[in-house]
């Protein structure tokens, strides 16, 4: 299955990569793209279905005279030269996903935005789920009119109410154990029936239907209902993204076999075809054997825009283990010289070093192979930094419920609420802020000031052989505590330091991601690709790669030396609001306004996990340091904890009353800190939360979790600011907690 998806995903990427330059007038830049990560796709076997798609893409390319691209794609897909022609007309007429995407790049007006979005979301929605559900219709009909035409079947509009009420009555009378499960049907049914009414121009009936039954829906769907409520005319449906999401992706429900049979029997008895048709066409019911789930179990997992994740979607093996740390010989010689006087020092170091060494010798069975994705080689400066890190780590405080971290709060003054993003370097020496006025500012929080490199003319004068050449290239005259970098043309929503502290990434409303040099404090590259606001960006823990995600609903993986993305992760149904790299750099997690979290495999570009359960847009993500767990925070003020290996929700932390903008695990993973718009930092006992897990086989197999409501026990501390929302958190290498925010006073 994975292999098939690999082929699919790659096809998407290829088209995007190759068509964009052509639109800009460059014809031949595609040769280099994907070299870094192009290991897998070439060898994937192609199923007939995929072949059809590929052919369509090829056809399109050929029509646009992109012969080189045609060649490459064909070679990679392993298609014979003459395979193009027979189906050409067909696929061109249908307007494939790829075609839709390209239209946008060339046009760029409102209607093409729509088709682009359609294209990407429909293509993406299938990427992870393909093969289990798709009858093939969804993929080939991303066009709006085609999508909507599914609603065209006529029924008596006045009967809709009756049908719905009938079903409601039935579900209310079934046995308790089934009621909760069957109640899940209400919301998608309600939406689809309403949309059908609207589509068929039964405006007043639609309104009446909405007013009558919208109150029955679960409160966490309120946001969507509000959007739906505005939608009262067929014309509105044309541009509405929410609606398109609903249409192009099947709403997924998990129902036990017994309950499903019950429902099916009822509908067949009553000849209730209207509803049955909707269930058949627009819902995907994931039937499982065993006990029906309880109301709380269902509530825990539901809430996303497109229902729950299918169980199959979370079955792929995820290598969540950490990579082996490169062995670094500690230069103990000069160390010893320093520490000769006090003998305690080297002694302290050695056991620590041994433990680090022994840890790295044992290969984690869950870890990906070291070269699964190519990682940049360590430079000397990186090694020095690693050594610094180890030194600091020996002084680290062991945190725990009895030993909470101190918090240092960095308040941005005079920012007039314009601060939109903050990041700190791993060694906590620099802090960067992205502002609504398009600036990026960097502060040094140590006495060491920020300096620029000397100008080229001055650099010629210095002795390049000298030992302190790195010191000499810096211009003392430019030393200051902070530097401002100009370049963006819109609010800067995401910011991230490279691990080696030489670069800074920023993503902005203007659709670009910029790479800044922290040696010259100038912009090096503007990565263009997202044409809409880029909400978040983050460097890989090993540098070189970075991920970005934004309003266009796709996350992109980039390498700093490629100006085109290496991977495009598409599948989310709404804006991607936050992106995070897994500690082993092999996976990327994205949180979205569609209230799901997806985990993507960097190697194949596939979605390997879908986590549902949040009831609002997700604004923060954090991986535990051991890579096993993921924490996510959303506008609903809850933090959810996920077991990546099993693909399960393992905890819910309630306490915040507003959006959680920042989550961070302590360096050893004992404590989870969450910072929120409600002006508080809360500390949670992560160890306990993860230890208490009941991961028996049954739970793992069915994915039905029983969450204990133990938030209060896990909450270790709450720290309130006067009026400063917490938008960033960071643990120093010694486990001091740093927080940042802008005063609202």
């Amino acid at each position: 299955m994975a292999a098939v998806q690999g082929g699919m995903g790659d096809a998407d990427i290829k088209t995007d990569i190759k068509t964009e330059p052509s639109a800009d007038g460059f014809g031949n830049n595609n040769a280099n793209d994907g070299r870094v990560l192009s290991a897998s796709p070439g060898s994937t076997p192609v199923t007939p279905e995929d072949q059809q798609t590929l052919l369509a893409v090829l056809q399109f390319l050929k029509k646009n005279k992109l012969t080189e691209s045609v060649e490459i794609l064909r070679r990679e897909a392993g298609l014979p030269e003459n395979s193009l022609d027979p189906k050409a007309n067909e696929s061109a007429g249908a307007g494939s996903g790829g075609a839709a995407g390209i239209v946008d790049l060339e046009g760029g007006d409102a209607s093409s935005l729509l088709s682009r979005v359609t294209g990407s979301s429909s293509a993406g929605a299938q990427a992870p789920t393909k093969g289990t559900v798709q009858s093939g219709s969804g993929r080939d009909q991303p066009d709006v009119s085609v999508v909507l035409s599914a609603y065209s079947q006529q029924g008596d509009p006045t009967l809709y109410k009756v049908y719905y009420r009938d079903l409601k009555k039935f579900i209310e009378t079934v046995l308790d154990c089934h009621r909760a499960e069957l109640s899940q049907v209400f919301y998608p049914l309600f939406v689809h029936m309403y949309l059908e009414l609207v589509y068929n121009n039964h405006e007043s009936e639609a309104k009446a239907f909405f007013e009558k039954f919208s109150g029955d829906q679960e409160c966490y769907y309120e946001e969507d209902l509000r959007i739906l409520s505005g939608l009262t005319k067929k014309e509105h449906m044309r541009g509405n993204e929410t609606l398109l999401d609903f249409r192009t992706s099947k709403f997924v429900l998990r129902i036990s076999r017994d309950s499903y049979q019950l429902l099916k029997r009822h509908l067949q008895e009553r000849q209730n075809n209207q509803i049955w048709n909707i269930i058949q066409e627009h819902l995907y019911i994931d039937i499982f054997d065993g006990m029906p789930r309880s109301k709380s179990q269902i509530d825990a997992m539901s809430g996303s825009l497109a229902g729950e994740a299918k169980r199959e979607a979370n079955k792929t093996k995820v290598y969540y283990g950490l990579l082996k740390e490169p062995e670094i010989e500690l230069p103990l010689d000069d160390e010893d010289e320093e520490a000769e006087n006090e003998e305690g020092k080297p002694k302290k170091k050695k056991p620590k070093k041994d433990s680090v060494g022994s840890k790295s010798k044992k290969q984690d069975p869950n870890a990906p192979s070291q070269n699964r994705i190519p990682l940049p080689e360590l430079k000397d400066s990186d090694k020095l930094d690693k050594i610094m890190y180890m030194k600091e780590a020996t002084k680290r405080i062991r945190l725990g419920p009895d030993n909470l971290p101190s918090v240092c709060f960095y308040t941005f003054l005079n920012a007039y609420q314009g601060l939109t993003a903050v990041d700190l370097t791993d060694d906590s020496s620099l802090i960067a802020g992205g502002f609504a006025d398009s600036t990026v500012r960097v502060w040094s929080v140590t006495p060491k000031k920020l300096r620029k490199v000397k100008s080229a003319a001055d650099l010629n004068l210095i002795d390049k052989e000298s030992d302190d050449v790195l010191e000499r290239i810096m211009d003392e005259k430019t030393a200051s505590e902070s530097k401002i970098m100009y370049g963006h043309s819109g609010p800067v929503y995401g910011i991230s330091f490279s691990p080696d502290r030489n670069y800074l990434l920023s993503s902005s409303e203007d659709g670009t991601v910029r790479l800044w040099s922290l040696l010259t404090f100038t912009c090096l590259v503007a990565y263009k690709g997202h044409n809409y606001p880029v909400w978040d960006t983050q460097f890989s823990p090993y540098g070189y790669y970075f991920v970005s995600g934004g309003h266009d609903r796709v996350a992109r993986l980039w390498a700093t030396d490629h100006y085109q993305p290496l991977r495009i992760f598409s599948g989310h149904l709404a804006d991607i609001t936050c992106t995070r790299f897994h500690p082993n750099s092999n996976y990327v997690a994205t949180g979205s306004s569609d209230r799901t979290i997806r985990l993507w495999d960097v190697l194949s570009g596939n979605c390997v996990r879908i986590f549902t359960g949040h009831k609002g847009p997700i604004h923060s993500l954090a991986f535990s340091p051991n890579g096993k767990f993921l924490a996510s925070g959303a506008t609903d003020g809850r933090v959810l904890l996920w077991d990546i290996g099993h693909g399960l929700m393992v905890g819910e932390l309630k306490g915040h009353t507003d959006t959680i903008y920042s989550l961070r695990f302590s360096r050893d993973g004992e404590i989870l800190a969450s910072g929120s718009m409600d002006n508080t930092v809360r500390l949670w006992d992560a160890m306990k939360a993860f230890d208490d897990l009941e991961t028996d086989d049954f739970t793992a197999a069915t994915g039905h979790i029983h969450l204990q409501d133990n938030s209060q026990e896990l909450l270790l501390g709450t720290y309130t600011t006067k009026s400063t929302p917490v938008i960033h958190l960071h643990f120093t290498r010694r486990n001091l907690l740093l927080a940042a925010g802008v005063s609202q006073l």
Partner: protein
Amino acid sequence: MAEERRQKHCSVVLPTESMKAMAESVGVGQLQEDSCVALSEEVSYRIKEIAQDALKFMHHGKRRKLTTSDIDNALKLKNVEPLYGFQSQEFIPFRFASGGGRELHFYEEKEVDLSDIINTPLPRVPLDVSLKATKEQQKAESTEPLKVVKPGQEEEGTIQGKSQGTTTPDGKGKEKGLIRLKPRSTHELSVEQQLYYKEITEACVGSCEAKRAEALQSIATDPGLYQMLPRFSTFISEGVRVNVVQNNLALLIYLMRMVKALMDNPTLYLEKYLHELIPAVVTCIVSKQLCLRPDVDNHWALRDFAARLMAQSCKTFSTTTNNIQSRITKTFTKSWLDDKTQWTTRYGCIAGLAELGSDVIKTLIIPRLAVEGARIKAVMEGPVVSNIDKIGAEHVQSLLLKHCASVIAKLRPQPDNVDQYRTDYGYLGPMLCSHVMKARTQAALQAQQVNRTTLTITQPRPTLSVSQSGLSGSSGPRTPSIIKVPSSLTLMSPRPGTPSQPSPPATKYIVMATSAGAASTQQVITLSSSQSASPVTSTVPSATSTLQPLVKLESGSGAGLTASRPLQKYIVVSLPSSASSSLETKSSVLPTSISSSSLDGGMKLERSESPGASTQSPH
């Protein structure tokens, strides 16, 4: 509730009148009613859509308020030209007008006279974005007392985020939940106060005696130190904790002098900080070891001084609710009664109890005199265990004699019979007897000599002074050193006049200085600064070993520091040398700056020295 709201959402549509008004404003008259309805529905829908997108921008902008720029951005997202010019932050720029049955909201655009704008003075330049670090600290052992804050309180640290975050050592131990136990309210300090705090604390523990005196003077007299009180009290308690471990006698003394100064300040209310101060003071009284070389350093003086502080705070702050006095008494008694208690602690306990007043002496100490005497006897006359024990025993003995004599003098009827005493008080009896007799005669002569706060510190090797370093190597009988306060020691020639002539038996001199209303700290300055002017030192040799105050000297020394001060009086008194003063004979004098209690407004400087030292005073 939610349902209602939702239904409202459903039905909210702009009124058709608005459409008409809009149409008219762009020159389209006579709009059909149907068109109006269609338009208003369409417009309402689009506005909702834009509002929803704008909310997205608000969320990503990490704000709670929707701004016009959010709407601009949402419009951009839809490829619609933003409404430029609506930059107002809070204020809604619409005006309402009604008339003729029509209601209208309009945007008021006044005609602006350019010259007005040109002529208005420029507004203040807005401040640039800056970064400030504040800290919520979890640990008790903070090196930076400025940052101890209880949770929930955002406190200002220093400016520009320059310092703490990364550099503060977070490698220290923490105490569980300590913060929650401390209901102190710390207030933010202004920059001036921070500077003041820094200066004062540095001066108090620094090496310059003059500065210290000035600082203590400031603590004892300045009003408005209340804001800094929590910091001072933390400073002291932390300082004691650290320096007890390091056996840094000098610093402990300085810190106790700070406590004294704080107590003397009439504007400060120490009640709330006693929980930090009292443990610190008690530590200085009873700690097993307070100095590096207990056999030679005079830590007894510190114990005496701290005991007096303790007594004073008991007197001032003990209430029926906090029961300080009884708790302290219990603590002292308990450790005194323990057989295993070391002599140093024993001394501290007795001193602490004795200072609490004659009642305590009568009920707690006197009944135990016999037991204690036996213990002392065991050390003094038994096999020599260790020198330290012996010295301890000697000190305890003299302490007991000193305090009990006057009480017994009042308790017992006149004829003092040695044998009677021996039966009553055991080993100490005979000595007591003679002391009591002396006390009786003395009481008759000078009743006013009681109850002075005194600190006597004698150090064989003034380690603080640079000048002594040359001498410190000598291991034999130590060179008697100078009668000077240490700060002046550093000023002096490194080689004080060597007393070559054999020393006569040691004598104790008490230098008393009185000045009207001036706090003692200032007097120390005077003392040290007037060194060069010689009157003080020159008086010393003239004191002979009589019991009476010998010299009253008035010095209006010419040093600039003291010029403004009222006349200083130095009274040099000599006390009978105690039996245990063999050590002290070799010692020079450490500075004392005990402020006088309000009762007697004087200060005693107790010194013991070999008269030979006087030779170096300029004549």
